[in-house]
Each structure stands twice: as C-alpha cells, then as structure tokens.
C-alpha cells in the first residue's frame, strides 16, 4: 500500500518534469535563451574585458568575482563547521579493557613513528606518481586562466596528493607540508588572496575587485594568478586539514 502510494507520487512528479524536458531548446542551439543574454557578451568580449582566455575563469574571477568570494567563504565556513563538530564530538572511547593498552600504544606511537601498513602496489604507485601529480597540480593552477582548470581543481588535486602521501608515508612525514605556524594562513589563503587582489584592484581602478584588463594586461594576469594560487593552496590545505582531523585517534 505504502509502496504503491510512493510509486504513484513519483510517476506524478515525473510527468511534469518530462514535459519540461521536451520543451527545452536542443543542445547547442544558438538561440536558446541562455545564449542570447549576458553570455553573448562574455563570449564576444570576455577575453579582452576579463583578461583570461579561459572564459570560465573570466566569469568566475572577474565578471562574477563577488560570487566567487562568497563561494570561497562558504568553503572556509564548512571547514570551521567540520572542525567544530570533530573537536566537540571526538571518536567514541575504546572498550574499557582495551583503554589502557590503547593509551600506552599511543604514547609509544609518538615516541617512535612507525610507517603505516599499506600494500606494496599502492606504496610504489603513489611514490612513483607523486612528483608528476605535483607538477600537474602546478600546471592546472598556474595555467587556469588560459586552459581548463584553475585554483579549485588544482587545489582538489593537491589535497588528494597530500592525502595519498599521508596514507603511504604516515602523518609524521607529511606534517612538514602543512607546518603548524603556516597552516592557518594556508587555510585562509583563498580568502586572503581574494581580499588582497580586491584591494589592489581598488587602488588601480577605483572599484573593489576591479581589474585593469583593458589598460594594464600584466597587472590583470598577476592578480588572476595570485587568486588562483591562493584558491589552490587554500583548498588543498582545507582538504588536508579535514582529512587529518578525521584520521586522529
């Protein structure tokens, strides 16, 4: 009875959705509403106005830069929230008979860092690929305003590389990549880079986050590059921090 009701409800919902799909303009059609409003301007003048050959980056970091600042703030807030939850609700305590043994095991863990046990295949592949992944990350971040990619993608790949290395080499050997003193700055790097670029833009053009794309191409490129690097480092540091915090205990 309940299942029949749910199925009927789903079918009822599917009918208007399917009718809506048939009314969509064909894929790639030039006179679809989404191609006739602002995006025409982006495609025609995006490169010279935004200073980025990759139009996606042009829209993200120039035309819609305030939206991206908001997005970066959301990611940072998510980090704060996740850390808050993880710190206020630590992992469930071990069963009482194992508690004493676990305590001493942890103490020796700190004294003599042991390598984690991973399959030799995983260890070999991660060690072999790590430098290439790192190089690819730099390319994705630094080349993001010209080719597909950018800070968000590069940051995610860099965070993944950090997690893979931590899994294979152990936390003690990858800690130096996220130093205690620099880590807070790295976690906030995306927001800091955006604010810095915004202030520089305000000095150069008179508007917060304004880019002098048509008058000073070099400054625009450097501002875009700074924001991309900030987002990349910040994103990677946030992923790495969440992973390390979840792994603790």
């Amino acid at each position: 009875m309940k299942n029949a009701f749910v199925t009927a409800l789903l079918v009822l919902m599917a009918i208007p959705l399917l009718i809506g799909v048939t009314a969509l303009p064909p894929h790639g059609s030039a006179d679809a509403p989404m191609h006739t409003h602002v995006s025409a301007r982006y495609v025609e003048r995006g490169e010279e106005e935004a200073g980025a050959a990759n139009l996606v980056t042009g829209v993200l970091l120039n035309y819609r830069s305030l939206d991206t600042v908001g997005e970066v703030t959301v990611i940072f807030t998510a980090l704060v929230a996740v850390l808050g939850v993880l710190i206020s609700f630590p992992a469930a305590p071990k069963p009482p008979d194992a508690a004493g043994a676990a305590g001493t095991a942890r103490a020796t863990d700190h004294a003599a860092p042991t390598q984690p046990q991973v399959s030799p295949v995983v260890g070999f592949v991660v060690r072999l690929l790590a430098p290439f992944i790192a190089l690819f990350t730099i390319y994705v971040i630094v080349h993001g305003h010209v080719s597909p990619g950018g800070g968000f993608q590069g940051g995610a790949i860099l965070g993944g590389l950090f997690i893979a290395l931590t899994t294979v080499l152990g936390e003690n050997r990858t800690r130096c990549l996220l130093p205690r003193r620099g880590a807070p700055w790295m976690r906030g790097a995306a927001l800091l880079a955006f604010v810095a670029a915004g202030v520089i833009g305000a000095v150069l053009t008179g508007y917060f986050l304004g880019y002098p794309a048509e008058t000073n191409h070099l400054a625009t490129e450097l501002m875009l590059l700074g924001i991309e690097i900030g987002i990349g480092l910040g994103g990677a540091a946030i992923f790495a921090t969440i992973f390390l915090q979840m792994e603790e205990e």
Partner: protein
Amino acid sequence: MSMAFDILLLVLLMVTALVVARTKDLLAAAIIFSAYSLVMSLLWQHRDAPDVAMTEAAVGAGITTVLFLVAIGRTARREK
C-alpha cells in the same frame, strides 16, 4: 557514435546511482559512488565542460570518496 556513447554513460550513471542507493555495505557504496562521479565527469567532458569535468573527477571521485572512507572507518561499515 556520440549518441550511443551518451546513452551508455547515462545508463551507467543510472545503474551506479541505483546500486549506491540499494547497497547495505557502506564501503562498497562509497566505491561505487566514486565510479558514479567518474562517469559523471566523462559526461561533463562530453558536454564540452572540461572545467566542471576536472572538478567532478578531483572532488567527486577523489576527495569525497576518501572522506567517506575515513568516516566509515570511524563509524560502522554496515547500514542498519
């Protein structure tokens, strides 16, 4: 050819999504969800959205899966 590839990807997408919803073993579900993300990223690439495809592959198939695995390690492996 392109149409057939699209249909193949969409069918794979639906199958993986359904399997994720039905699986009781959370570890298997996390891995299949990563496969779902990979198919989705191919679909984005096929739709001429390489930026989104890269994000999907790196965040959806990579980081999210790792975080799911760590979360399963901290909790229970089977859905009640």
